[in-house]
């Protein structure tokens, strides 16, 4: 446990003394902020139009929660496909490139401790990203009346989704010495999983359709982002995290066997 925490602590400290994490999270916040306030602006304009036209029956379906929070959270989920791979591409790739992997593998730390230590650091960083994303919604609460629980459910789903992507990218970074490769493959994998359900719709076989839809990440974060937490989605993210961290551990083990 001490070794695990030492690895996680070192990883986190490195992230915060190099500009990488600041830049990436800064850019994310810039875009996220833009999207959030743009969707808020659109919402207000549409609201005025509806009032001007007197179509009051439409107002029932026209709420702040779905339009502003739901829509922008979906866009944030897309941003995660870029942010998470870029944040976690250093992971093992950098250790292998600069030779410090030899220090880890000749220390008493087990492969599980090494993988979990690194993952814990990324998870903590993504927790920060989640909190920062939450600040937008806090602004909304100051001036409007969104649904608290739905919003929290959306944030939680966004966080879980980013954790699942981090596990995938953690595994990918064990396979290469190149951070660039790790980053790009990570982005590709994240985007692929995102669009799998679209591919599912065009498939002929029902079995294949079901499988592709289940594998796709968007199938499992869409309900959550709209405020509906389903246990099957929680299970999906849990499975993805467990599977890819086990794969990462196996990959680290295989580094010892070359």
């Amino acid at each position, binding site marked *: 446990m001490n070794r695990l925490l*030492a690895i996680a602590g*070192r990883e986190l400290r490195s992230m915060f003394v*190099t500009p990488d994490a600041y830049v990436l999270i800064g850019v994310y916040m810039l875009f996220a902020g833009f999207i959030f306030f743009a969707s808020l602006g659109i919402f207000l304009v549409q609201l005025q139009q509806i009032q001007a036209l007197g179509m009051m029956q439409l107002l029932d379906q026209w709420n702040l929660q779905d339009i502003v929070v739901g829509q922008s959270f979906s866009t944030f989920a897309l941003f995660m496909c870029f942010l998470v791979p870029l944040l976690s591409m250093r992971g093992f790739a950098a250790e292998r490139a*600069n030779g*410090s992997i*030899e220090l880890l593998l000749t*220390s*008493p730390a087990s492969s599980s401790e090494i993988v979990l230590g690194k993952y814990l650091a990324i998870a903590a960083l993504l927790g920060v990203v989640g909190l920062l994303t939450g600040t937008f919604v806090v602004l909304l609460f100051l001036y409007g009346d969104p649904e608290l629980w739905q919003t929290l459910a959306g944030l939680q789903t966004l966080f879980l989704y980013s954790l699942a992507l981090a596990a995938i990218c953690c595994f990918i970074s064990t396979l290469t010495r190149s951070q660039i490769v790790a980053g790009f493959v990570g982005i590709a994998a994240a985007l692929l999983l995102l669009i799998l359900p679209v591919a599912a719709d065009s498939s002929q076989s029902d079995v294949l359709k079901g499988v592709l839809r289940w594998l796709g990440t968007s199938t499992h974060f869409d309900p959550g982002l709209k405020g509906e937490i389903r246990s099957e989605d929680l299970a999906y993210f849990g499975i993805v995290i467990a599977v890819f961290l086990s794969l990462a551990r196996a990959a680290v083990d295989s580094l*010892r066997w*070359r």
Partner: protein
Amino acid sequence: MIEARGLTKRYGGLTAIADVSFKIAKGEVVGFLGPNGAGKTTTMRILTGYLPPSAGSAAVGGFDLAKEGRSAKRVTGYLPESPPLYPEMLVHEYLAYVAALHDVPRRERRDKVARALTACGLETVEGRVVRTLSKGFRQRVGLAQAIVHDPAVLILDEPTAGLDPIQISEIRELIRRLAAEEGRTVILSTHILAEVEAICQRVLLIAYGHLRLDARLDDLRAQGSLEDVFLREVEAAAVPAGKAALVEAEL
């Protein structure tokens, strides 16, 4: 303290080392000498538990690497060929991290880091970022991380490679002191004969993956020029290995 029994390592069709066996007693300082590509690094990586052997077994500090690898790693300090540094860390931060990785309890860490810093002459740079250090200082930080958890066994892979003559003599002096003061068992690899003469009492000569010679330096000196002895052994090793390569090519 260190025991290798019939160590063999194959990478695909290439045999890096074949049937290497030796025993090193506590407090001995042994030079692992051989031309580049002879199998020195492979042997050391097996002894540090980084690579598993294809055949044979090894024990460090009385712990079998296959069965009690974690205990063996705890008593081993290892400096790989290129020091495993994190460029963005501070020197003392880095050493504290390595200590934690090797199970040094939190309350002892500060003391051990301070001792390693003093032993390696790093007091003046403890607050510097590793990236900004000169090559000589980086090598010292590499040595400091190898001794920070107070290991009984030190395994140093080409500790003076790439340094200037002054740095080389400093590092050699440092290794001598680390070995003498604490009674550590040291095994260091090099392809420089003078290095073995300067630091070690005993030499293991490896060439083309075979252990050719295991002798005390004093005994060897009695046989005449060390250089002649080594060249003779390396050449003698080259012949069978060359033949083996030919046979492999035909297959």
